[in-house]
């Protein structure tokens, strides 16, 4: 079997936020078709990595490189990254009062596909995807994440991912705060996205999501670095033995 394209190559990445170094030399290679799980203690730097990949202006790359589809990613703004196929499901999705979900989704899909989708066709696609994610119709007229429950926010993140059909999806704790049924719904949403050309970076604290989605690789982050990598069995070991087994907790 020929090796799939390396869609994401991170080399010795150092990142600062407000003058504090958070990532201290992360290296990671992800090929198309692969699912990577990223685990690690609270505050170890997982979300920092996901924001950096998406191009959040507050996260400054001070050293190292990020290559995406063979070219340097760091110069691109967040919108350019999105249009080139990167998607981030936020750990804490942002509320935007006054902006309806339907207007927002149309604008997002238009940006990604580069052309306006006919209203009727778009509505139909939306309805189908919403019903398989168990999202109520009245969602469309509500304001983005405004007053949404934790589970509703996560479902909206998955709905957007499906509509935007990314090549590289970073899911930052999309499983957190979900009840068992919602977890299954979200997991099947993620599974329906997987394929030979799509790469997924799954940030999670729990083995339970990995019961539904089997990662090809599991990485452990600690104090801004990836300190251990392995196959899907590593997640089970972490679940049983905790992070102290990998590395002692840093002194805060």
């Amino acid at each position: 079997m020929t090796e799939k394209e390396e869609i994401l190559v991170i080399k010795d990445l150092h990142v600062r936020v407000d003058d504090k170094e958070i990532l201290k030399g992360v290296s990671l290679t992800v090929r198309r078709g692969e699912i990577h799980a990223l685990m690690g203690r609270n505050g170890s730097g997982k979300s920092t990595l996901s924001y950096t990949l998406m191009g959040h202006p507050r996260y400054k790359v001070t050293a190292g490189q990020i290559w995406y589809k063979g070219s340097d990613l760091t110069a691109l703004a967040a919108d350019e990254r999105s249009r080139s196929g990167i998607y981030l499901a936020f750990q804490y999705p942002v509320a935007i009062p006054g902006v309806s979900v339907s207007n927002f989704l149309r604008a997002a899909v238009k940006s990604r596909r580069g052309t306006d989708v006919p209203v009727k066709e778009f509505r139909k696609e939306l309805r189908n995807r919403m019903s398989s994610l168990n999202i109520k119709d009245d969602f469309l007229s509500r304001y983005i994440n405004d007053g949404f429950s934790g589970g509703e926010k996560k479902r909206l993140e998955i709905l957007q991912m499906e509509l935007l059909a990314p090549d590289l999806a970073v899911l930052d704790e999309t499983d957190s705060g979900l009840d068992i049924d919602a977890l299954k719904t979200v997991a099947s949403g993620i599974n329906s996205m997987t394929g030979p050309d799509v790469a997924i970076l799954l940030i999670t604290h729990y083995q339970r999501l990995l019961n539904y989605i089997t990662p090809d690789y599991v990485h452990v982050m600690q104090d801004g670095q990836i300190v251990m990598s392995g196959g899907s069995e590593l997640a089970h070991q972490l679940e049983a033995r905790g992070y102290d087994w990998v590395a002692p907790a840093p002194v805060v």
Partner: protein
Amino acid sequence: MAEQKTVSTATQVDDPTKRREEPTWMKEARLASWESYLSTQLPGIRDDGWHRTDISGLNLADLRAVDFHSPEASASVSPWVIPALDSLSSHSGVLIQEAGTPAYLKLDSELADKGVVFCDIETALKTHGDKVRRYLGEPADLNDDKFTNLIKSWFNCGLFLFVPPGVEIANPLLSFTSVNYRSSGIADGAVLPRLLVVASEGSRVTLLHSVTAPLSQAVDTALHAGLVDIHIEQAAHVSYLELTEFGPAVYSVTNTRAWLNKDASFTSLTAALGGRLVKGEISTYLNGQGASAEVAGVVLGADNEKYSFNTIEEHNAPDTRSNIHFRTALKDSSTSIYQGIIRVDREAQRTDAYQSNKNLLLGSGAKADSIPKLEILADDVRCSHGATVGPVDQEQVFYLMSRGLTAAEAEELIVLGFFTTVMAKFDHKPAIAWVGSAIASKLIAHDRDSRKQSAGEQK
């Protein structure tokens, strides 16, 4: 061609009643206000409600009242109104007043049969003198400021809306006023509308009023000064929307006053989308027990535009309620000052009043001030207020950009959303969409201009 009625307001020899075919009592009222006008000063930045609002650049003596004309059956809907009519869909009546041409007037015959009156102010004075005299014939008020006196003496357009007791009008009445300075042949024109709304006991009505004066290179200064009086009788309801869009040569001063009787309610939305200096005062007098008011304002500034708005809620009776939501977004070097006053009379126990003012600073030179003022004499009241001033939330921008929207598109959507939450309080959905699209056009046109400019600078 209609008879030339242009009169200069420049000197004392001017007579605002000249060549007007009006009842004597109206002429007397005009003259009395003209006397007051001549003896009052232009408001200065130390006067109540005029803080940091410098209008001294406006030379009233140079202005001339523009000519408006009575409706004619042969008049047709002006092309510039058609997009608005399309987006507002169903309506009960339309009045279009454009400087220099006959007005267009239409009212559903069914409503006319019920006794509803909807017409331009000139027609009202001719044919409904008995109904309007009570309001327009009152002696000059010593408290009237310079602009109110100017409007009361020289008003040259406007409308009268009367809804008889118990009549509920489902679809809105529409009023469009435009100043086409070129065709009116006047360099420095004054558009002085006077609007009078009387909603009798138990009636319901929605009035949408828009005034536009496009940018015109030929104009040095121009003035729009309007007086809007709304009388809401017992258990009646009035929804009133005012949309103004002016070019950079136009000063605008609007005074809107609503009087609410027992159990009356008032919903208003004021949208200010342009002008050199736009000053607005919206006063609500809650004079009857159980009266309630929902007052919203949206202001989008750009370039060097200046905005100054006051809201005054007077709670003069028990169990009255008011909700004020004023929102401003300022691009470039535009500035805004908002002053919100809540007065609660000794009698007005169990008043419930809320006032919120939020300001988004989009441009590096933009500035917004917010001055809340509470004067409370009753002891059993619920009164609160809040104000914020700040830039667009960068986390919101990032969230939208992470979905592929450009920085400019993201900002547009966020600003529109910022306004939408308060516009949603207005109870006529198509009107909200109509104002929303006017806001969006200004945002987009402005982005395009600034992009062109920065591209030009790079060359």
